[in-house]
């Protein structure tokens, strides 16, 4: 059964389902129970009332301890879902994720899996400035042992999160705050999107645009505009899973279109797009009719002023000019 849900509700439904299905699942973070924000569409709204304070744990303001809690509990067989309130705050938790969550399976020779899920609220466009808005996914994509996903619509946000929670590896789930308020058809029940599978969200033949998170909407807007204005047929690939990356989906699409653009809200230099474009250049060079292109935020912190933030955030116009430059 499909219903239209907001992204925040879809996340909420995934969390509630996971807790219903499996006693090992618990939530922890700052404000996952009682929040300063009353938002009935929010991702953890109502879960404290429903599941109680044993399983929905508001923590002190202690990101290292929140992440350590998750790592330690996961090594003893629980399925923790911890929340980092804003992506830049993950720097305070990064030792736990980089040196421990990612490495304990390896160090133990496979004896100590870390089935941890870290939900991170991310994105820009809400005038919070650069210490609340800073998309750091490339840091975590760079860490062997971590998985990383970022849904672009309520259905995928739900399905990826459920897969992450029951995955044996640590998964960082990037939730774009803008998408909490975006509505989309969402399957009811235990709906899962497999990790490592991209989705073709618009078919096309002239160029491939790969994106994830909010940027998928930007890519779709650009594809539509180019179809109308230039008569171009643009394929849009929603990567969904950044690690593992669905390499064959990217290469297969580029094989058909011969042109490749990647789009993300994070900054450009050493951003996630650098890896994807390098892969295309290395492995699909013979298919390319033009250079690969990246559309990303400029290499500066996220500005505060609304006019500056609009300038800074990649938009459909940027994607359109990138694609036109390939033709």
């Amino acid at each position: 059964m499909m219903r239209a849900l907001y992204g925040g509700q879809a996340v909420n439904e995934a969390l509630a389902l996971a807790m219903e299905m499996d006693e090992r699942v618990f939530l922890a973070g700052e404000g996952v129970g009682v929040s300063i924000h009353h938002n009935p569409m929010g991702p953890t709204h109502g879960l404290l009332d429903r599941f109680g304070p044993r399983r929905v744990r508001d923590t002190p303001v202690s990101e290292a301890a929140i992440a350590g809690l998750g790592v330690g509990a996961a090594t003893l067989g629980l399925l923790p879902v911890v929340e980092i309130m804003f992506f830049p705050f993950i720097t305070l938790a990064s030792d736990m994720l980089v040196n421990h969550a990612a490495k304990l399976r390896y160090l133990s020779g496979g004896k100590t899996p870390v089935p941890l899920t870290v939900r991170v609220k991310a994105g820009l466009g809400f005038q919070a400035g650069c210490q609340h808005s800073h998309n750091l996914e490339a840091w975590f994509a760079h860490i062997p042992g971590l998985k990383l996903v970022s849904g672009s619509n309520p259905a995928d946000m739900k399905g990826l999160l459920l897969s992450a929670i029951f995955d044996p590896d640590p998964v960082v789930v990037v939730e774009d705050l803008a998408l909490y308020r975006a509505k989309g058809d969402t399957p009811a029940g235990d709906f899962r999107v497999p990790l490592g599978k991209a989705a073709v969200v618009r078919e096309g033949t002239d160029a491939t645009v790969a994106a994830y998170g909010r940027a998928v909407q930007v890519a779709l807007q650009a594809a539509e505009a180019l179809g109308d204005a230039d008569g171009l047929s643009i394929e849009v690939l929603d990567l969904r899973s950044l690690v593992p990356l669905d390499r064959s989906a990217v290469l297969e699409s580029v094989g058909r279109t011969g042109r490749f653009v990647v789009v993300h809200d994070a900054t450009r230099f050493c951003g996630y797009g650098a890896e994807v474009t390098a892969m295309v250049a290395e492995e699909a060079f013979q298919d390319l009719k033009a250079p690969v292109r990246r559309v990303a935020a400029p290499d500066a912190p996220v500005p505060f002023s609304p006019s500056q933030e609009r300038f800074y955030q990649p938009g459909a116009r940027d994607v359109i000019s990138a694609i036109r430059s390939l033709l």
Partner: protein
Amino acid sequence: MELPTKEQRLRILRSMILVRAFEDRITAIVQGGDRVPGIQILATGQEAAVAAVHALGEQDVLVSNHRSHAHILARGADPRTLMAEIMGKATGVNGGRSGTLHLIVPAVRALMTSTVVGAGPPMAVGAAFAQQYRNEGTITAVFFGDGAAAEGSVHEAMNLAAVWKLPILFVCENNRWAGAQSVQVHCPGGEIVPRAASYGMSSEAVDGNDADAVYLATARLAAPARQGNGPSLLELMTYRMHGHSEADGQLYVDPQELEEWAGRDPIQRYVARLLDEGICLPPEIEAFRETAAATVNESVAFAENSPDPLPEAALEHVWSWSSSPGASSGGGG
């Protein structure tokens, strides 16, 4: 609180003697050549800490730090596979991926060892949370040093453990050195234990070179955790007789101080006490030493005769799928 039984005390003594023999052998090998790869970090002089491990229950969880051999041997891990791991061999308890620094022996509930100083306590909080969540009645003991106590993560862990009344025992081995910094230099007052008051935790600082005192304090402080009354902090006042690692020449250490602490050697003191109290006789002590030497000989032989791991096995166990060849291409799976 009563003294440990005769059997317990003899077990503690055997354990201390084994740890010393095991680590002395590593020192000898390092000094004699290069048969042990990497950094060797030993607990020489701090062996009475094994009494804290022996005061734990079989199902309790241990989280250790870079100076871990004593804890893990006392927990009952196989010295042969530990030595093989320390030498980077395929038969090592972690297949050679860990070496001495990150030993993980789930079979004896040695859940993890972190060499990131101060990283153990937050994860121990997670382990203790799991124990509380499942109402196990078990506890987690996490060992860290006076140096680690300067890390913010240790504060976060203690605070969270205290507000959630988690079943955890924080064991600070104050060996008076953090790298080349004396505890008097890096820590106001030189003691960690006063901090417990600010978390509302029970705490004790004891002579960390007195195995009976360590055992008793551990048992006392573990009790509230077991009863659901939250964490405690135990500080073992001891001394790091070797450098930070075996590569450290201790040029910054006052030789007179080293000599003073050599006079408080935890093994000599325990032997003297147990003999004095008639708990055992000199031939038994001699037998303990011979058994330990034989175990260490056997462990070194086992390690030296073990094959190196296959180079390509370095790519296994990164992710749950990564025994497949695709692992080498990173996120490609």
